[in-house]
């Protein structure tokens, strides 16, 4: 069910400010693609255009095409609500709904479409999603406790469970481990490894070692100069990117000369 994403000629604006310029890239299905680059170069911005979350920000808009499988997600008559159900997203800081239990958090997306979910179906979804997020065994005895009561790493996996419970085809992750300790980070990285058999995964990270560890493909974003828009400098197999990058600035970034 995973789908590939084709991005062509994408310009991303905040109001009149061009934040990211002319991105052309194909993101493979059932693989992990990592996006790296210095702060402010537009990684998050780009990621959010892949499920039309960008336009949630007042004044934000895009030019260009993003094709998911065979559907242009910015096409006419496309409902952004549908796009977001199809392309799940996990954020930098874990954000379970504080008023809901673990159980309700996992079901939050499903409840939107189907108020009267049968109890048995609901249970099945919750178990499936939490198992998929490697969390089931840790929380199965306290499903009715608030989601906020979990540790940071558990919360983040809960958010991943919530995202996969609606069966998306793509999973976007924006620095999902940057707020986590080493052990939680390892747990989430393991999970990403497992998930890629079913999902197309795009992950933004500021940790190059992490990119090297989890991804097959890596895209490097950078600013041409301060005040200029960000752009995709290089997109390559991860192994190639971290050994023999094509661009000089990629090399400079990877070797830690800035950022």
């Amino acid at each position: 069910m995973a789908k590939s994403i084709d991005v062509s000629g994408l310009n991303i604006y905040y109001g009149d400010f061009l934040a990211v310029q002319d991105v052309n890239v194909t993101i493979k299905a059932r693989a992990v693609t990592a996006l790296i680059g210095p702060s402010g170069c537009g990684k998050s911005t780009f990621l959010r255009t892949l499920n039309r979350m960008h336009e949630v920000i007042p004044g934000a808009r895009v030019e260009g095409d993003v094709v998911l499988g065979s559907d242009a997600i910015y096409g006419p008559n496309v409902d952004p609500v549908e796009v977001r159900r199809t392309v799940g997203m996990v954020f930098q800081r874990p954000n379970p709904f504080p008023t809901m239990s673990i159980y309700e958090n996992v079901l939050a997306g499903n409840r939107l479409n189907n108020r009267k979910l049968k109890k048995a179906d609901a249970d099945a979804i919750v178990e499936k999603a939490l198992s998929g997020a490697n969390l089931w065994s840790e929380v199965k005895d306290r499903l009715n406790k608030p989601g906020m009561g979990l540790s940071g790493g558990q919360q983040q996996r809960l958010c991943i469970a919530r995202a996969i419970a609606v069966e998306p085809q793509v999973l976007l992750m924006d620095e999902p481990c940057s707020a986590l300790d080493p052990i939680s980070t390892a747990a989430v990285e393991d999970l990403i490894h497992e998930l890629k058999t079913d999902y197309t995964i795009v992950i933004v990270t500021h940790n190059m070692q992490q990119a090297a560890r989890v991804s097959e493909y890596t895209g490097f974003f950078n600013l041409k100069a301060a005040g200029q828009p960000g752009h995709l400098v290089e997109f390559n197999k991860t192994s190639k990117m971290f050994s023999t990058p094509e661009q000089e600035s990629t090399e400079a970034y990877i070797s830690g000369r800035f950022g």
Partner: protein
Amino acid sequence: MTTTDASPRVGRRLGDLLFAGTARAAGITILIALAGVATFLIVEGIPGIVTTQSSAFAGKASFVSYTWPLVFGTVLAAVIALLIATPLAVGAALVIGFYAPRRLATPLGYMIDLLAAVPSVVYGLWGATLLAPKMQPTYAWLADHLSFIPFFAGPASATGRTILTAGVVLAIMVLPIITAICREIFAQTPALHREAALALGATRWEMIKMAVFPYARSGLVSGVMLGLGRALGETMAVAMVLSASSAVTFNLIGSQNPSTIAANIALSFGERTGVERNTLIATGLVLFVITFIVNFLARGIVARGRKGS
């Protein structure tokens, strides 16, 4: 190190002491001012409560029977105002926070703020000369058709200057306050959770239900309470709009309407002298205590909300 050089340090300390002292004194002034308000109202109010001069209670037997209809009217008018203003304010704040495009949101917010900038005498002028006559036919219709509801028992006032009209004017006046607080609270709802809801495929309204209202609840309550505080104390608009007697009735559209404490003070202050004025001050003390409690509760809720989040 030059820490042995003592004299400039003393100079600095003096500057710091003076400045800090002035700042602290200014802060304490506020404590004193509020204590002063309470003290002077009590000192000048008590003679008006214990007096035996019957004219002080305008024909009523005691301070309590004089004040009770006023308290009733004050609360009734404020509650009507809140019932009208709250949904409107929440809606307006939602538009400004989540619905209107950015270019429009700012001027819309400004327009709502302008409502708060209109002086209350002008509301009074508008309410008495435009709104009340415009409402009168509606009241007549309500009295004709819905008189089985106690609120619309009728007979309808001939002038439209009823407690309901006063409530409407008050609603307009407290609306910007509640809207402003709602806007602030909505803006504070974590973008993280709003985006989480949207990313799950929620529509805008579902997002608001999932990620805005649960956070905003305590803030909304306190915003409404602050509006209540304002509505309880509003004076001139009510004084100018309401045609008051000392009735205690739930008939909102009739010609017999309870007055409010504040309006009663403004209207009868001039014609009262001596101990009669002390009685008015005592009713003011009652109003002060009521609004103090309401604001106290409201701020308490806000403070608790802040600690909780």
